[in-house]
C-alpha cells in the first residue's frame, strides 16, 4: 500500500478512529453529550476527507477496495444519513434511561461497514462490510432491551445470519468455479465459464437471495415489519436507509459489472422479485395500523421500484438509482425522525396510526413536516420523491421494461391511499386529550428534520446541480 492509498482510505479511517475514540472516552467517563459530539465530529471529519480522497483519484486499494467517485459519493450519503440518525438517537435516548453511549459506537461501525460495502471490489470486503453492518444491527435493534426489542433482535439475527450463509455459499460456488473473488476479474471471465456456467449462475442466484434478504425484497421480506416495529425509531431509520443504501450500492456495482442481462434466468428472477415487491409491499401496507409496519412495507415497495432502474440498461440506470436512493434516504430518514421526536405515549413510541389523529392542530410544524415526507414517498411534485419516481420510470420506459413500469404505476397508485390516510388522520380534529406533549421541541431533532426537509425540497424543485454531481462522480465507468 502506498501513501496515496492511505489518503484514499482517509474517510474510512476517520470513522473507525472515531469509534475507537468513543470506546476510550467511555472508559474514562460516561457522558451522553460528549459521545454524541465525538460521533458527529467523526462523521463530519470523514465527510471532510471525501474531497481529499477524491483528489487521490479513483484507485484500487489492494484488491479489496476500490475508492472511486461512486464509492465516495455513496460514502457521503451514508455519512449524511448516519449524522441524522445520531441526532435523532440523541433526542430519543435522552428521554429514556439506561446506558446510551454504546449505541453511537455501534452506529459508527455499522456506517463503516456500509461504506466498505459501497467501496468493495472483492468478495472478502463485501462479506466483511456486510457483517459489520449486520453485527452492529443485532445489538442496535435490541438496544433498549425491552421484550419487543429483544424479540426483534433475535428475529433479525436468525434471518440475517441465514441470509449471510446463502450469500457465503453462493460466493463460494462462484469462487470454486472461477478461481477469483475480484469483481473485475469475474466480469472479465463472464464470457468464458466453460461448462460451469450453471454453477456460477447458481452461485450468483444464491448471492442475489442473500442480498435480497438484506434489502427486504419480497419474498425475503418477512423480517422487515417485525424488525421495523421492534427496533427503536432511530435504529429503524438506520435499517431503512443506511444499511439498504450500502447493500444496494454494492449490488449495483457487482451485478452491473458481472451483468444481469446475459443471464436470462437471473433477469427473470429479479423481475419477479421486483414486481412482487412493488405489489405485495404496497398491498400489505394498506392493511397496517402501525406506522412503523406501514413504513416497513412501503420501503419494501420502494426497493422494488429501485429494481426497475436496476434492471434497466444504460448510463441512465446508475444515475436514476443513485438519485432515487438519495431521495429515499432523505425521506425515510425524515419519516423515522418524526417518529423519534414524536411525543411519547405512556413511555412508548407513538406508532399507532390513531396516535397521529389531530397532530396537525397540536404540533403544526411537525405534522406539516410529516405530510411533506409522506408526499415525497407518494411522489407528489416539489418533493424529491416526484423527481425520483420520474427518473425510475424514465429508465424503465427507456429500456422498454413494460411489465415493471406498469407494476410501478399500479403500485404507486395503491400507495397513495395509505400515505394519504395518515395525512388525513393528522388533520382530523383530535378526539382525545392527545399524547403527552414534551416540554420543548428538541433542538437536535428539529435540526435534523429541517435538513431532511430541505433536501426533499431541494431535490424536488431544482435537482439539476445534484444530478450533475451524480453524473460527474457516481458513474461506474
Amino acid at each position, binding site marked *: 500500500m502506498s501513501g496515496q492509498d492511505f489518503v484514499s482510505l482517509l474517510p474510512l479511517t476517520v470513522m473507525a478512529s472515531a469509534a475507537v475514540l468513543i470506546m476510550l472516552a467511555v472508559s474514562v467517563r460516561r457522558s451522553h453529550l460528549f459521545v454524541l459530539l465525538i460521533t458527529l465530529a467523526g462523521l463530519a471529519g470523514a465527510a471532510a476527507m471525501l474531497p481529499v480522497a477524491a483528489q487521490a483519484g479513483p484507485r484500487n486499494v489492494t484488491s479489496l477496495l476500490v475508492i472511486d467517485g461512486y464509492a465516495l459519493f455513496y460514502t457521503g450519503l451514508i455519512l449524511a444519513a448516519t449524522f441524522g440518525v445520531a441526532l435523532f438517537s440523541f433526542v430519543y435516548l435522552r428521554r429514556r434511561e439506561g446506558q446510551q453511549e454504546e449505541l453511537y459506537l455501534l452506529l459508527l461501525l455499522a456506517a463503516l461497514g456500509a461504506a466498505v460495502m459501497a467501496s468493495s471490489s472483492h*468478495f*472478502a470486503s463485501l*462479506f*466483511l462490510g456486510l*457483517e459489520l453492518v449486520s*453485527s452492529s444491527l*443485532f*445489538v442496535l435493534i*435490541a438496544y433498549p*432491551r425491552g*421484550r*419487543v426489542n*429483544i*424479540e*426483534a*433482535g*433475535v*428475529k433479525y*439475527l*436468525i434471518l440475517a*445470519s*441465514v441470509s*449471510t*450463509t446463502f450469500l*457465503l*455459499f453462493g*460466493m*463460494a*460456488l462462484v*469462487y*470454486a*468455479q472461477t*478461481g477469483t*473473488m475480484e469483481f473485475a476479474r469475474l466480469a472479465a471471465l463472464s464470457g468464458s465459464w466453460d461448462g460451469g456456467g450453471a454453477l456460477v449462475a447458481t452461485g450468483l442466484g444464491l448471492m442475489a437471495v442473500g442480498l435480497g434478504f438484506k434489502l427486504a425484497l419480497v419474498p425475503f421480506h*418477512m423480517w422487515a*415489519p*417485525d424488525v421495523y*416495529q*421492534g427496533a427503536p425509531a432511530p435504529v429503524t431509520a438506520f435499517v431503512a436507509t443506511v444499511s439498504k443504501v450500502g447493500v444496494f450500492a454494492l449490488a449495483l456495482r457487482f451485478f452491473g459489472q458481472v451483468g444481469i442481462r446475459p443471464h436470462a434466468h437471473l433477469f427473470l428472477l429479479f423481475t419477479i422479485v421486483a414486481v412482487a415487491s412493488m405489489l405485495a409491499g404496497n398491498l400489505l401496507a394498506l392493511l397496517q395500523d*402501525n406506522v412503523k*409496519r406501514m413504513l416497513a412495507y412501503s420501503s419494501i415497495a420502494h426497493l422494488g421500484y429501485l429494481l426497475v432502474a436496476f434492471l434497466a440498461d444504460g448510463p441512465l440506470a446508475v444515475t436514476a438509482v443513485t438519485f432515487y436512493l438519495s431521495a429515499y434516504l432523505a425521506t425515510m430518514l425524515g419519516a423515522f425522525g418524526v417518529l423519534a421526536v414524536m411525543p411519547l405515549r405512556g413511555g412508548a413510541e407513538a406508532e399507532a396510526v390513531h396516535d397521529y389523529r389531530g397532530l396537525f392542530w397540536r404540533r403544526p410544524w411537525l405534522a406539516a413536516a410529516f405530510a411533506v415526507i409522506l408526499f415525497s414517498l407518494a411522489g407528489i411534485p416539489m418533493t424529491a420523491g416526484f423527481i425520483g419516481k420520474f427518473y425510475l420510470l424514465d429508465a424503465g420506459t427507456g429500456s422498454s421494461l413494460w411489465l415493471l413500469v406498469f407494476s410501478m404505476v399500479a403500485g404507486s397508485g395503491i400507495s397513495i391511499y395509505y400515505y394519504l390516510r395518515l395525512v388525513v388522520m393528522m388533520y382530523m380534529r383530535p378526539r382525545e386529550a392527545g399524547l403527552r406533549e414534551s416540554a420543548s421541541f428538541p433542538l437536535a431533532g428539529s435540526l435534523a428534520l429541517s435538513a431532511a426537509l430541505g433536501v426533499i425540497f431541494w431535490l424536488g424543485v431544482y435537482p439539476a446541480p445534484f444530478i450533475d454531481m451524480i453524473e460527474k462522480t457516481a458513474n461506474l465507468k
Partner: protein
Amino acid sequence: MMAAVPANYGLLLAAALFILGLAGVLVRRNVIFILLSIEIMVNASGLAFVVGGSRWRQPDGQLMFIFILAMAAVEVSLGLALVLQLYHHLKSLDIDRASSMRG
C-alpha cells in the same frame, strides 16, 4: 496425507452439510438449536471456500475461512447474549412465542 479428490466431491459435501443446516433452521423451534444449525451452514460455506482454494491452489479460500471464523465468533457471542435476554423476558426459548408483534 494428501488426497487428490475431484473438487466436485468437496463441494458436494459442503452442499450436503449446508442443506442439513437449513433443514435444522426450518424445523427447530428452540433458539439454541437454530443457532447451532446456522453454525452448520456457516461452516459448510467455509468448507466450500476451502475446497475452491484447494482446487485453484490459492490461499484465498483459506483466508475467507478465517474471516468467516471471525464472523462466526461475533455472531455466536451476540446470538447467545440475545438468547439469554430472550429467556429473561419470556422464560422460554421457543421462537414461536417471541411474537408479541403482529405479523
